């Protein structure tokens, strides 16, 4: 059975249906990009799958108790505020929480995972820096490390590259791609269709409260889907660098 499986999955917010009869299954090694216009329910889909908001239908994660779920899936909300000036190391150590008993000092294993997570996002040397003093790119990477330290096979992230400069966007996507290559599953919502096309192994297009398309980027970003759901026309081509995508113009009013 796959890690995350949704069936007949519906979510309403304040009485308004947002998602209806979603069917979605993700496999190990996939980097799944959730795309769709504003308000399509990208964040809602992930929060409901995590059990943060009520939903109807079947979700494989709902069968887990709080502790097992925390060891199975990590969540990176879009809000990247860290409330206190804690150190990068302490922040990443928070990810170890589901693996540690109450009041226990971090074990050598915890420390190894934390150091490994920090190395993986390239923040060596920043361990004792206060998170609040980092640039937003560095903070995003620290928060990714926090999710990595949780040692889950599934990572969900809400617009992790929003607000980053191009270099940080690319390196963040590459970090996620490397995780997927290692056999973990990463699912993230993303507005940048170019980066989505280039780095994701699979795209899920949400629109009209449903999954409109689901599959390899080139197939999901079809002329027809883009026109119908995003109301845009775009250029998409397979090149020596992989798929290259560029939004071109808005269609009609």
């Amino acid at each position: 059975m796959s890690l995350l499986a949704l069936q007949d999955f519906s979510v309403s917010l304040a009485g308004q249906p947002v998602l209806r009869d979603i069917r979605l299954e993700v496999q190990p090694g996939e980097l799944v990009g959730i795309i769709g216009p504003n308000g399509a329910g990208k964040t809602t889909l992930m929060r409901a799958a995590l059990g943060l908001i009520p939903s109807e239908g079947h979700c494989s994660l709902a069968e887990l108790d709080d502790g097992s779920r925390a060891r199975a899936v990590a969540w990176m909300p879009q809000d990247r505020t860290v409330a206190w000036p804690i150190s990068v190391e302490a922040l990443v150590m928070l990810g170890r929480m589901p693996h540690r008993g109450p009041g226990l000092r971090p074990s050598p294993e915890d420390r190894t995972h934390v150091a490994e997570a920090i190395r993986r996002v390239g923040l060596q040397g920043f361990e004792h820096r206060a998170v609040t003093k980092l640039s937003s790119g560095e903070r995003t990477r620290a928060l990714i490390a926090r999710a990595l330290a949780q040692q889950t096979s599934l990572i969900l992230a809400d617009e992790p590259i929003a607000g980053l400069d191009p270099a940080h966007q690319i390196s963040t996507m590459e970090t996620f791609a490397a995780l997927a290559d290692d056999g973990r599953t990463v699912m993230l919502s993303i507005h940048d269709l170019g980066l989505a096309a280039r780095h994701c192994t699979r795209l899920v297009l949400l629109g009209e409260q449903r999954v409109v398309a689901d599959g390899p980027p080139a197939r999901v970003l079809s002329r027809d889907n883009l026109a119908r759901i995003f109301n845009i026309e775009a250029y998409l081509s397979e090149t020596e660098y992989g798929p290259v995508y560029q939004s071109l113009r808005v269609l009609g009013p």
Partner: protein
Amino acid sequence: MSRLLAVLLALAAALFTVSLIVGPAAIGPLASLQALFAAGDTPLSLVMQEIRLPRAILATLVGASLGLSGAALQGYLRNPLAEPGLLGISGSAALGAVIAIQTGLAATFPLGLPLSALTGAFAGVLLITLLAGRRGGTLSLILAGIAISALASAMVSLALNLSPNPFATSEIVFWMMGSLADRSMQHVWLALPFVMVGAALLLTLGRPLDAITLGEDAAETLGMRLARVRWQLIVGSALVVGASTAVAGTIGFVGLVVPHLLRPWVGAMPGRLLGASALGGAVMVLAADILVRRVLPEADLKLGVITALIGAPLFLHLIYQTRQELA
């Protein structure tokens, strides 16, 4: 970290001892400590056991309560400006006390006032849980607290307004300034169980509060149950703050300043701040209560006035220091 706790503990113990040997009765330090443990009822041992000991114990309990509850609230609300008064608990406890003074209940038996204040605190908590509910978010908790505080203070003003005579008015005003003068062991026994249970509820919030540093959603996906955390926070704070206000009146700024002051020493981790703030609060109130008796002993300075006089400038200084981070 454990060094910080040890330093604070030593500081609290030292101030506790100083608190025992400071007072209007001119007794040498050694003689007073001997009298404290002496059996029999010489005037000296009565002074020590019936007046100074309860005062020092209450200063410790009240200070620890305010510091702990302030640290827990700041951690949960992820806001350095949160303080125990925010939930409206001290406000409603004050209202209960004022009602006791106004109706004459306070004069009928010694625990009339603190019991009425406790009742007020519980009424306030009941209201806040009804308003902010189990699924209510942070914002509804803050708003409910503000509304309850405003209502309680309006009722206190009403009581002052309708006060039958100037004596009742000044009694209310003086009580609200907060003091530990003339308290007995009865007050200690009244407050102690509530403070113990409340402190146990708050001190076990360390893990969830650490997780909430990342926001409520992330904390929940780390395995924390936020509804339970919120319940524990509200009930725990109500117990410690309600009991403290009931025996000492409203004492401001301790719950705000102490966590703020100690935060850099615990690496800003909200969980580790809990125990440190409890000890730090005890240190601050013990020190303030010693000051009250040493500076202008004949003027009957109120404890709450001193804590605010120390706390507010300290807070201004902290804001001055950290305003770049706050910006």
